[in-house]
């Protein structure tokens, strides 16, 4: 990789002060470092968030699970508090990448990177989570804006994500057998405000399947999804799967997720 200036700030404020237009934030580095090794990214400055105290805290407070930006996938997967409040979230974290990636990769990195095939965005959108930054809060529905694009401003750092505890939820993915990225992943949550269905891996960005949500609001069971599919027009078409196959997988994964959520 190209060389860069390395910074290890001790606070979020200090980190914000180090940001410039050619800088990159480093959380776990499991996406950023491979990108830099391939010379697809050439940051002038790398700002390592790994030394900021308290940024990896996990807490469950009544009806909300709050996970700090630098909490690793392994720590979320192993958290009995998370597993007790939102088992689907702990389960999702336990299926990201492999053990070694989970020991280093972070929720903040995954959500801010917004890889179209990442798992966490499905939970953030599916549960209607709130993304907290150093300067504001952003609703999940407003956060993911495109391929690797989010509502985060250049000088903004994601600090934590808070997830409302649903009545029931499940995440099911059809994983790429090599990378474990989602070819299609569907997160279904039954909340007091209705059912939410978030799809990752299939399109340029995580999205909600509103037709499925309407059907599940009327009848929360897998059979309610019979004959309901997302259009394949805008779905990804690559060497892993065609757009039509992905559209098919969305329905299959959604049904399995509803079943896993008790529907």
């Amino acid at each position, binding site marked *: 990789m190209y*060389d860069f200036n390395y910074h*290890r700030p001790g606070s979020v404020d200090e980190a914000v002060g180090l940001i410039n237009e050619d800088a990159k934030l480093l959380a776990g580095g499991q996406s950023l470092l491979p990108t830099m090794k391939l010379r697809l990214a050439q940051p002038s400055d790398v700002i390592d968030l790994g030394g900021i105290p308290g940024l990896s805290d996990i807490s469950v407070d009544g009806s909300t699970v709050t996970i700090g930006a630098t909490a690793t996938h392994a720590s979320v997967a192993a958290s009995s508090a998370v597993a007790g409040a939102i088992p689907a979230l702990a389960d999702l974290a336990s299926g990201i990448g492999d053990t070694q990636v989970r020991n280093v990769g972070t929720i903040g990195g995954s959500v801010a990177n917004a890889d179209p095939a990442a798992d966490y965005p499905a939970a953030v959108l599916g549960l209607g989570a709130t993304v907290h930054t150093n300067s504001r809060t952003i609703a999940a529905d407003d956060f993911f804006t495109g391929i690797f694009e989010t509502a985060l401003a250049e000088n903004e750092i994601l600090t934590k994500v808070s997830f409302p505890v649903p009545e029931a939820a499940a995440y099911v993915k059809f994983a790429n057998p090599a990378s474990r990225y989602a070819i299609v992943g569907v997160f279904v949550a039954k909340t007091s405000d209705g059912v939410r269905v978030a799809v990752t891996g299939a399109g340029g960005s995580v999205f909600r399947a509103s037709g499925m949500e309407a059907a599940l609001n009327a009848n929360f069971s897998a059979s309610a999804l019979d004959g309901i599919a997302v259009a394949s027009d805008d779905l990804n078409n690559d060497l892993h799967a065609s757009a039509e196959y992905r559209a098919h997988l969305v329905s299959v994964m959604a049904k399995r997720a509803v079943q896993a959520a008790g529907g």
Partner: protein
Amino acid sequence: MPNVSMTVNGKAVSAEVEPRTLLVQFLREKLSLTGTHVGCDTSQCGACVVHINGKSVKACTTLALQNEGAEVTTIEGLAQNGEMHPMQAAFKEHHGLQCGFCTPGMVMSAIDLVKTHPNPDEKTIREGLEGNICRCTGYQNIVKAVKTAADNMGG
């Protein structure tokens, strides 16, 4: 150049490094600990797995500087007083290797696996070693070795 300090296999080490130096380069090129291998260099194959503060990590996908102050254990740090670690002994006993290139990472991942799953069944072992690729053995003897080691480690 910035300086990095950490503890590797129980010994305090310190060196100047370019910021882009990966942990695996630091171990192999600065410390001459060449037991940690670089296979794919893309965090897929697991030949570079070491323990950082007790957890298995791919040393090709972390910067040396990220690990300031960390406790790092490599394959060279496992044997104690000339006695192989039970995981190493089990790999030898069951011939859990052919060419041996993946073995250091495989052993390091397997030790972390047994730590988190003291009595793993075959499925748990195979899933736990998903991040390590072996192109020789077909994994059968690796699974046997990990099971034996788990038993011998008191699981």
